[in-house]
């Protein structure tokens, strides 16, 4: 199991668990980061952070602080 921010662009992963809590966890769930959801790592920004992820068809940019709270396994 790895953290989402460690996954390089071009890879597909599945959500295993969320380490966030409170409002952030709620926001992540609302964006579709439920167990088993497929994520595509699309592109890293200038200077590496934030990164664009394809989550259920939407392009969402997350900073590495937030992405590190999402545990994933390769698809």
């Amino acid at each position, binding site marked *: 199991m790895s953290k989402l921010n460690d996954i390089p662009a071009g890879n597909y992963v599945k959500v295993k668990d969320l380490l966030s809590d409170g409002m952030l966890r709620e926001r992540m769930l609302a*964006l579709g980061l439920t167990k088993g959801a497929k994520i595509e790592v699309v592109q890293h920004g200038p200077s590496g952070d*934030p990164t664009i992820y394809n989550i259920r068809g939407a392009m969402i940019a997350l900073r590495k602080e937030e992405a590190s709270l999402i545990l994933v396994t390769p698809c």
Partner: protein
Amino acid sequence: MGLTFQSTQSTALKDLFKIEKTDDQYVIALAGNPNTGKSTVFNVLTGLRQHTGNWPGKTVVNARGQFKYNKKEFILVDLPGTYSIFASSVEEEVAREFLCFGNPDAVIVVVDATCLERNLNLVYQIMELTNNVILCINLIDEARKKNIIIDSEGISKELGIPVVLCAARSGLGIKELKDTLYKVCERKIIPSPKTVIYNDDIEEKLKEIQPLIEEYLTKEKYINGNGINSRWLALRILDGDSKLIKSISSNFNIDIYRFKDMGELSGLSSDDTKRSNLRDLISESIYKKAEMVKEKYVREDKNKIKRDRKIDSYVTSKHFGIPLMLLLLGIILWITIKGANYPSSVIADFLFGIEDKLTLWFKSMNYPEWLHGLLILGIYRTLAWVVSVMLPPMAIFFPLFTILEDLGYLPRVAFNLDHLFKKAYAHGKQCLTMCMGFGCNAAGVTACRIIDSPREKLIATLTNNFVPCNGRFPTLIAISAVFLAAKEGSSLILPTLSVTGLIILGILVTLLMSYVLSKTILKGIPSTFTLELPPYRMPQIGRVLYTSIIDRTIFVLWRAIIVAAPAGAITWLLANIHIGNSSILNHLATFFDPFAKFIGLDGFIIMAFILGLPANEIVLPILLMSYLSTGSMIEFESIESLRKILLDNGWTYLTALNTMLFSLLHWPCGTTILTIKKETGSWKWTALGILIPTCVAIFTCFITTTIFRIFGWA
């Protein structure tokens, strides 16, 4: 301190709940994810013109409008975009509160046809809350471009609610939407939402709690369907959202705490981990359903979706991202400067030509000198300056900026600059509010509502002024054109570069001051940030240009009459009423002069900035008025005369540079100050909002002056 979570929430709610309706009126809530064209639907239905930009969080004010259909009146409330009813931000809380407690007669959920799966989360949540839901699948034209085919009838059967396909931008499907809405409100269509069935564990608990709640509610005379949905309430008790439960208790005036134990009785405690597991399970179940619906009823062409990706691979790339941004900024400025040139000359010739005629007429009518002075030299001349010099650039820049906004480019800017904002301890969304400031600083300050944390909202509010607003661009352009463009008709590259440079400086100052504030009076931890990059949407360029230009022109003209005319009158009076041996204006200018010279300006420039408090676009005209009132007899035939006036009054390169810097960094205009007060609710922060830019401006001018003097350039 005036700014707390409470205060922002309560003011927002106060905006919402004042809906008084009669029996012939229906209150309709418009909900949906951010960026689904909700506001476009709103505009098309109500005929109002709320601006719809393509970036998430654009709707910060709850708009209300109405329309008639079949003799019934519909009051439409446009809620801010939300990803879920379970609020993870103040905006979402506001939307949630209205859906739960505003008692709408029906809810239209607007979803993006190109992103159905994610959007269905909210739809299912709302379906649990109320039966009267209509699904409006918008942006169907964008979907067609991407070869996405949606089986709306299948979805309607699956969800149990009416579904309407729309392309609100072109009016497609709107009549059907109105018709469906009418039928639902009149009970001619009765939606029966097929909500998500959760796992056995949860469903069993619900079977225990729900009847008890229903009994209690009917005892208290609440009818299911026209008040609170008992299943929804049972679920909320199970997942123990204490803030929501408190809200429910106070809003519906029921004692829900009696049910708190239900959660415990049924084995699910108010233990945090167990509760968050429940929220996870609920979300998971909803998304599994959403996935299934998408698989079954939506056909996609994987290849067509690539277009946006390709564009973004350049626009947000490591190497091209930021240079492209700067290039784009430069191009827009160049178009503004070049494009404004010709209209400015034409209008100036026309208006100042009339001034001559008016002067002749005044002389022939033997009206007193002072009347001629006040009306023609004061009011008319200032008006003429604002309209000929200030209006054309504003009428060009604003539409171009709007096109960029509508295209969806702004979130990409926020993405590219995010690492800088993070280093400055500023919220990621501050980049968006900063960009809004380019149009108008007051709008930028209002836009700060999209930032939830009070600390970061304040930082964004206080630093918004450092990007030049629409009213300041013409000043910067005019001064740089005078001093950097050799003569009329020459290449305008240098002025373009210098204004671009000033903007970059403004952004750097924004970042620097955000950092300073974060480390001193607004200490705290940075909050979390997710940014959605919406698909690029081709704006209807013709329509945007047309409405924007007209809109801007009317706005500037109106402002010219309301603000510039009186300011011109006051300036003329100050310049021509003598006390002792000199005019009031001269006295004031002389008073400010030593300080002004110290920072590389002169007394009249400071006076012009002070008198220009109501609106930034009048600063230059007032300055010119002041110079001219001191006796020089200059005819203006063209903008060239601007150069002569300035040079005749002692302007050097240093003066030009410092005036531009001062214009960029000085105190906010009157409207912005009032907006800061309204948004923060505090005089203290408003005062700081005035003081901080002023100090920065003075300090910067002082530095440049010192440098120039050290090197003997001035």
